[in-house]
């Protein structure tokens, strides 16, 4: 009697899991579809917007704190050893090339890996490129919000079972924002400092 019950529930459980997984997948697809529909429905390409994040010293930084200056935004993560440092080195170089004009420009590094990138990590990382670069982190929700506004794609890519065994896939683009906080133009992140400086000079003159 009891063995037959065990057998029955044993065979039912996988079916229940499959059904639940199906429902979950359907919900995910619906959500993704809804997101695409909503983001495609708001007319012009608005990039950027209000955000609330945390700087390397644990202070809250919002988009409004930066108004009055041109802002150069880059999304990346500090465990990124290749692409992000290449771009941030170029940005630091571009600031040098811009000379006095760089005083009107605030470069931002926003992490897409808030799980690992604490305020201290982000501060240390940003400072290793140039003291002018502000590193920002936040709660996963705050990061998701700002990434959505900038239409930045990011996703964890698992490489192993350990907590640190992942890299982040992420959009690698520089966003130039005006002193009023409005989006001016994207800048190719894979250029030399000289090229980035030339583009910024052209877009801000």
């Amino acid at each position: 009697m009891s063995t037959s019950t065990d057998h029955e529930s044993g065979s039912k459980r996988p079916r229940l899991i499959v059904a639940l997984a199906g429902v979950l997948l359907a919900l995910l697809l619906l959500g993704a579809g809804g997101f695409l529909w909503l983001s495609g429905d708001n007319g012009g390409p608005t990039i950027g917007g209000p955000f609330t994040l945390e700087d390397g010293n644990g202070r809250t930084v919002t988009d409004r704190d930066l108004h009055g200056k041109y802002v150069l935004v880059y999304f990346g993560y500090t465990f990124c050893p290749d692409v992000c440092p290449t771009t941030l080195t170029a940005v630091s170089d571009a600031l040098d090339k811009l000379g006095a004009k760089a005083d009107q420009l605030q470069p931002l590094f926003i992490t897409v890996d808030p799980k690992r990138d604490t305020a201290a990590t982000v501060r240390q990382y940003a400072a290793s490129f140039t003291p002018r670069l502000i590193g920002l982190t936040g709660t996963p929700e705050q990061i998701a919000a700002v990434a959505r506004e900038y239409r930045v794609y990011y996703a964890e890519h698992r490489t192993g079972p350990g907590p640190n065994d992942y890299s982040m896939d992420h959009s690698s683009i520089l966003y130039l924002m005006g002193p009023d906080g409005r989006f001016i133009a994207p800048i190719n992140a894979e250029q030399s400092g000289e090229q980035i400086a030339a583009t910024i000079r052209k877009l801000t003159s």
Partner: protein
Amino acid sequence: MKGHTVRAMIAVAFMLVAALAFAQQPPIQVDNAWSRTAAAGGNGVVYLTVTDSGAPDRLTGAASPVASAVELHESLNDNGVRKMRPVASLPVDPGKTLTLAPGGYHIMLIGLKQALKAGTSFPVTLSFERAGQVTATATVRQTVGGKAMDHSRVDMPGMDMH
């Protein structure tokens, strides 16, 4: 009979010299190994070039005492989305230089046991399918911007890739 022996001995001597000369000229040469400043606990990178003057070979892995794990990686650009993926091995062909440079193939140092400070250097041992292990010395370059810095040296290897 005697002349034969002498000639054979001379021939063997020549062959030995040739073999020794060949042995002293390693078929795989690793050059320009460099890294970036990085914090302890984080991840680092090594870029370098490999030239092969012998038979076709494959770079199958790397190790370094400065990191808990070392992997061969490739940075891919998928429509503006940057992805980093491990690579099992890389072909090393005679006459062609294998270049590991920013934005492409690189050696990833996972979990740095120490901070990588500018001007210092550390060993990195590459494993080749045929040539075995070859150890190179990677020099850490500064990434901080500043007028005193020679930026062309820091930036250009990466920019050449694009």
